[in-house]
């Protein structure tokens, strides 16, 4: 049978009609089996996840991706000393299908070598935003076709992991500029890269300062406060928000510690274990990205960021469906479309910053 269409329905919670009568139940209808049907279908179809890593070179992006997915994602390693730093930002994408316990995941990782490496880094975020919007555009074009595919291949970037260099001070102007632009179009998870150069106290102080910077500049990173659906989500997500950005260390080499084989970095003064919560917060990042919030990342990309992009494009094509007329989009504009910046998000962040007490 043809693969079934994956339909993440855009409707969120539905208000129940006030006129529906309360019903008396005698016996068991069996509705919860519908969940099983969904699960079987999801398992058969497999999942897709697209992740983008952004940061300056040498911050360990490729290693981090390999550590997250426990495999050599990139065929070739970093360029040697002889090769010049690329002049412009070139995005590299690689796709793998990985399977674990019967669940198939089609993973696409996009790297951004050359970001922030030039002398003049003005407009270095344009290729990144262009790529993200290009994926939205592709999806939109597929969606408005007359005969659409059952399952539109999803190449939209679901999550962007931004690597902050471990200066120990605060966010740099480049970071702020990029984050402001990125947060409007994609889910961003900032991490403190190479955290093995900071002690625990320095990490905490750095983290607080970064959180303060993010609040001051109205940058809403994932998990965004305004998308919390209910009280359980809010509690869980506030715990996560308290620890963002995570201080991570990546490694793809194994060493023997206490009889166990662990991933880590071996130095003369000890072995830094990647999966040890006392050493770094890699486990939290992995848990967030893969084990608990992967579906949520995809849902927010589909329901919020993609919808914003779509509204923008439809407005540009001067189409407001008045009666039966079909949408023919205007040709894609050369630069990224000016998104109707989520000013609601900004306002809320400012209100929250008034409420939040100063941490230090």
């Amino acid at each position, binding site marked *: *049978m043809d693969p*079934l*269409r994956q*339909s993440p*329905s855009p*409707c*969120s*919670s*539905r208000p*129940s*009609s006030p*006129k529906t009568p309360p*019903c008396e139940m005698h016996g068991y*209808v*069996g*509705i*919860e*089996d*519908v*969940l*099983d049907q*969904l*699960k079987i279908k999801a*398992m*058969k179809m497999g*999942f897709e996840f697209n992740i983008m890593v952004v940061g300056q070179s040498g911050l360990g992006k490729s290693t981090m991706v390999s550590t*997250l997915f*426990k*495999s*050599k994602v990139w065929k070739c390693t970093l360029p040697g000393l002889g090769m010049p730093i690329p002049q412009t930002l070139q995005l590299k994408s690689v*796709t793998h*299908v990985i399977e*674990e*316990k*019967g*669940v198939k995941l089609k993973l696409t990782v996009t790297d951004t070598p050359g970001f922030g490496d030039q002398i003049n880094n003005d407009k270095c975020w344009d290729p990144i935003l262009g790529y993200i919007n290009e994926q939205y555009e592709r999806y939109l074009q597929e969606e408005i076709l*007359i*005969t659409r595919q059952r399952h539109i291949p999803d190449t939209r970037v679901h999550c962007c992991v931004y690597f902050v260099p471990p200066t120990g001070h605060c966010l740099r102007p480049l970071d702020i500029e990029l984050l402001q632009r990125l947060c409007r179009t994609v889910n961003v998870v900032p991490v403190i890269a190479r955290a093995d150069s900071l002690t625990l106290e320095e990490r905490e102080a750095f983290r607080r300062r970064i959180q303060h910077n993010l609040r001051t500049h109205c940058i809403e990173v994932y998990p965004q406060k305004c998308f919390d659906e*209910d009280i359980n989500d809010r509690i*869980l997500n506030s715990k*996560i928000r308290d620890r963002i950005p995570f201080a991570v260390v990546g490694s793809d080499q194994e060493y023997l510690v206490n009889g166990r084989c*662990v991933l880590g970095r071996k130095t003369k003064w000890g072995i830094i274990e990647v999966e040890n*919560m*006392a050493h770094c917060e890699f*486990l939290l990042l*992995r*848990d967030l990205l*893969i084990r608990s*919030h992967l579906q949520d990342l995809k*849902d927010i990309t589909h329901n919020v960021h993609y919808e914003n992009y779509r*509204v923008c494009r*439809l407005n540009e*094509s001067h*189409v407001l*469906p*008045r009666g039966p*007329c*079909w*949408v*023919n989009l205007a040709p894609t504009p050369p630069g990224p479309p000016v998104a109707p910046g989520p000013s609601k998000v900004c306002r809320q962040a400012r209100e929250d910053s008034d409420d939040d007490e100063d941490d230090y």
Partner: protein
Amino acid sequence: MLGPALRSSFPVAPPAAQFPSDCFPATVRVGRSCSPPAPPASVREAPPLVRCGSRACLWLRPRAAGAGPHWQRHGTRGLWGQQHRGWATSLLWASIPASVKRGRERSFRAVPPDIDKQYVGFATLPNQVHRKSVKKGFDFTLMVAGESGLGKSTLVHSLFLTDLYKDRKLLSAEERISQTVEILKHTVDIEEKGVKLKLTIVDTPGFGDAVNNSECWKPITDYVDQQFEQYFRDESGLNRKNIQDNRVHCCLYFISPFGHGLRPVDVGFMKALHEKVNIVPLIAKADCLVPSEIRKLKERIREEIDKFGIHVYQFPECDSDEDEDFKQQDRELKESAPFAVIGSNTVVEAKGQRVRGRLYPWGIVEVENQAHCDFVKLRNMLIRTHMHDLKDVTCDVHYENYRAHCIQQMTSKLTQDSRMESPIPILPLPTPDAETEKLIRMKDEELRRMQEMLQKMKQQMQDQ
């Protein structure tokens, strides 16, 4: 794709989803599941595991855990202390080697918890999807059609255990003469074990009741088209946050048992609707037929459906790796279509038990007895196994056909009517015309020829 190489980096041994508690920072509280018994800390005390009873579930559970609702049998524990109800699972059925599965031994031992560290962990994805669906709930629209007096409302009552027609007034013959086919919608929210279902029943009183029944299905087709059109507009609109899906997912069509197969009005109705909605034909009031008559009637109806070229809803094929009893069930399901059903909204005493049924002087007809009628098969098919497939076929096939048809009509109307001022810049449709296709084909051929030449040159160089 790095398929094989990547797969080999995952070890086969299964894990336990537990983290040693000493690696948590002091502030993170590790939640404990609220139901007994708690998962064991060391391997030696681990209980034997058995396959979870639910067919779709691929996890094992501790044998002592007992049955109970499915969502209570399994769960995971997150690093943030979030509570997923149930016990920590330790094994996935799919990860057990096939030779063990085929054997008669069906219980397995848990394995050391450290091995979880070797897994990436996205096998929890189906559970994440599960949690979101539980929160969101489902909706389902069912249409019932057929002549009056065939037991439609009673069957709906028996299926969903709700009485939607408490205050219904049955019309007399005089009133029915001037009645046209109406469309009535009843919505009810059903919640069971935390899962919400918003059920909408679309009733069609007056269908087939008049003296002259020509085109009596027209209000129904109009209604179905209207729902499609509304969904199409919502989907193409700007604000897509709260789209109400009122499309009809399934139509139960009641065939009278008193005839010899399909009547002309049945054929007319089904042919008008088979491309718009999933039709499930039923033989109503099957308690007036003996088993041999039911068999004959079913065969007759199946032949006539084929003869008239009616596309009723087809059950999807089951996978080749399903177990035998599931395949057997599937075969039985397909062979008993159209289902012969009996409905009842009264509960009677039979053999000391209270059952839903109809009391006659010559015996009691039990609705939920598989030997008496196919009600249980219909209910299982409609709710427990095929509800999602019905919705998918509606979305992917019927709605897409409608949409394609609609768009083509709109665009042809626009290009024809040149005097109409259209606010949209009319661009060529994305499908290329014959000339462009020919050009593309020629270029493809050229490319292929050049590639072949290159290959030959490469080979020559290698040979040298």
